[in-house]
């Protein structure tokens, strides 16, 4: 038998991870929707609201920038990421990757890392544009805090998205539920948080993903002293990450049948 050159060793992890990251980055750069969702949409909101009296009516520039940041994270994670993942599952991309010697966690981690990196860059762009058009001056420390909160927010919405794709098999259903969930979370965080729906709703809203993230962004931009509410918001966000990531990993279905 002359099978000397036949592959029998497990390939190096670094090369596999590098190749995945590279491929996922190319996919991200080529997919216009995720870029539009994560950066363009929030920037448009910021620019539009910088004219006239809109900002004072909507609660000041801090809240507007926070809202733009949150919206960018929410849409790109809950619509962009989930749909791409569900689609790749449906057409068999995930199965093809899974028969290679790359472990499952590596395939998923690469996608998540690229998504979070995109959200990070988008958030930086949004804050810079926001501070310019709304005449806000931020110091380096605030930028770093915004970035930290953005990573936390991205992780939270990605975990929710991962759980959604994990539990729901059809791409169409993922798309429909993702949209509804997005609107629901946004309304809950904004309307509930405004207090017009009563105290009970306000408490629920403060603890909701969008509400908690809005509070964190807004306080970081405000440079107000760290309040007890911020600790609760932080705890809420971390809690959502843990719970939904667990669901999304534990019950993730790799095939669409």
């Amino acid at each position, binding site marked *: 038998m002359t099978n000397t050159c036949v592959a029998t*060793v497990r390939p190096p992890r670094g090369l596999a991870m590098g190749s995945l990251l590279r491929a996922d980055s*190319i996919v991200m750069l080529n997919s216009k929707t995720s870029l539009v969702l994560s950066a363009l949409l929030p920037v448009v909101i910021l620019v539009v609201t910088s004219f006239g009296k809109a900002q004072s009516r909507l609660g000041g520039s801090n809240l507007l920038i926070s809202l733009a940041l949150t919206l960018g994270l929410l849409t790109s994670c809950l619509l962009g990421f989930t749909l791409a993942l569900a689609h790749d599952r449906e057409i068999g991309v995930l199965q*093809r990757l899974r028969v290679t010697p790359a472990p499952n966690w590596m395939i998923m981690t690469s996608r998540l890392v690229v998504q979070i990196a995109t959200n990070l860059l988008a958030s930086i762009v949004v804050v810079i544009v926001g501070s310019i058009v709304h005449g806000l001056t931020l110091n380096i420390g605030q930028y770093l805090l915004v970035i930290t909160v953005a990573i936390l927010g991205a992780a939270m919405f990605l975990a929710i998205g991962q759980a959604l794709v994990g539990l729901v098999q059809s791409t169409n259903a993922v798309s429909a539920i993702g949209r509804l969930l997005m609107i629901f979370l946004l309304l809950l965080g904004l309307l509930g948080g405004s207090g017009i729906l009563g105290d009970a709703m306000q408490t629920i809203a403060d603890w909701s993903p969008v509400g908690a993230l809005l509070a964190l962004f807004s306080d970081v931009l405000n440079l107000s002293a760290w309040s007890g509410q911020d600790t609760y918001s932080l705890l809420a966000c971390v809690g959502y990450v843990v719970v939904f990531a667990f669901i999304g990993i534990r019950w993730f279905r790799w095939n669409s049948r």
Partner: protein
Amino acid sequence: MSEVNVPAQPPVLDISDLRVAYGARTVVDGVSFQIRRGEIFGLLGPNGAGKTSTLSAIEGLVAPKSGRLLVDGIDVQEEPLDAKARLGVQLQSSSFQAELTIQQIARLYGGLYGVKLSRAQIGTSMRSIGLEEELGKRFKQLSGGQQQRLALFIATIHNPLLLLLDEPTAGLDPQSRRGLWRRIEELRGEGNSILLTTHSMEEAQAVCDRVAIIDHGALLTIGKPSELIDKHRDDPRVLSVAHGAPTLEDVFIGLTGSEIRD
């Protein structure tokens, strides 16, 4: 069928009493067979017989309900990544990321299998499979035959010990089909073993050293194509469907019945 002489190397694939179930429904029900080094083995069976499910268990895509699966002596369930490193796979229905070009796909899968490919090497490989003009295209922009050639190239990128091909010639024109047969034989010549599924008896006879016929998840018969014809030529079920001297197709239809599956 007990082997008396102990082989120096383990079989490339050793399946014993494999059972695969989806929910309560068992679709592979106690299948056992071995594939030797340098062998081309054909898995035949009607639609829904359990061919793809058997392959999925070997590939680690589904967890078997019971049974043992060894690839080159490595237990697929215990050491899945080591087993996968030895397998080259072409799935019956799968795809590559729609946003990647052919060149980027080759890069990605090379990396996943531990093969670092330069731009020039990818170019040379693509020329050898007639895709040099397509390097910048997306997978979806290729014709069916081109997609199939790329998928086979990806499956063999790391020169795997065992190649699993699920209906590799489905939808190909006669020229491409012959081209694929040639490529499969070349690969065998290089020391690889191949497990393929097909609905073409002509193909099974032309390229397979041995074939197994399965239906309803159970293995009905196994052997060289010519042996199977000899073995079942007097079976009344085979005689009743044969026109003249029994062929492999007569054996297949005789053993699996004439009704159409869904």
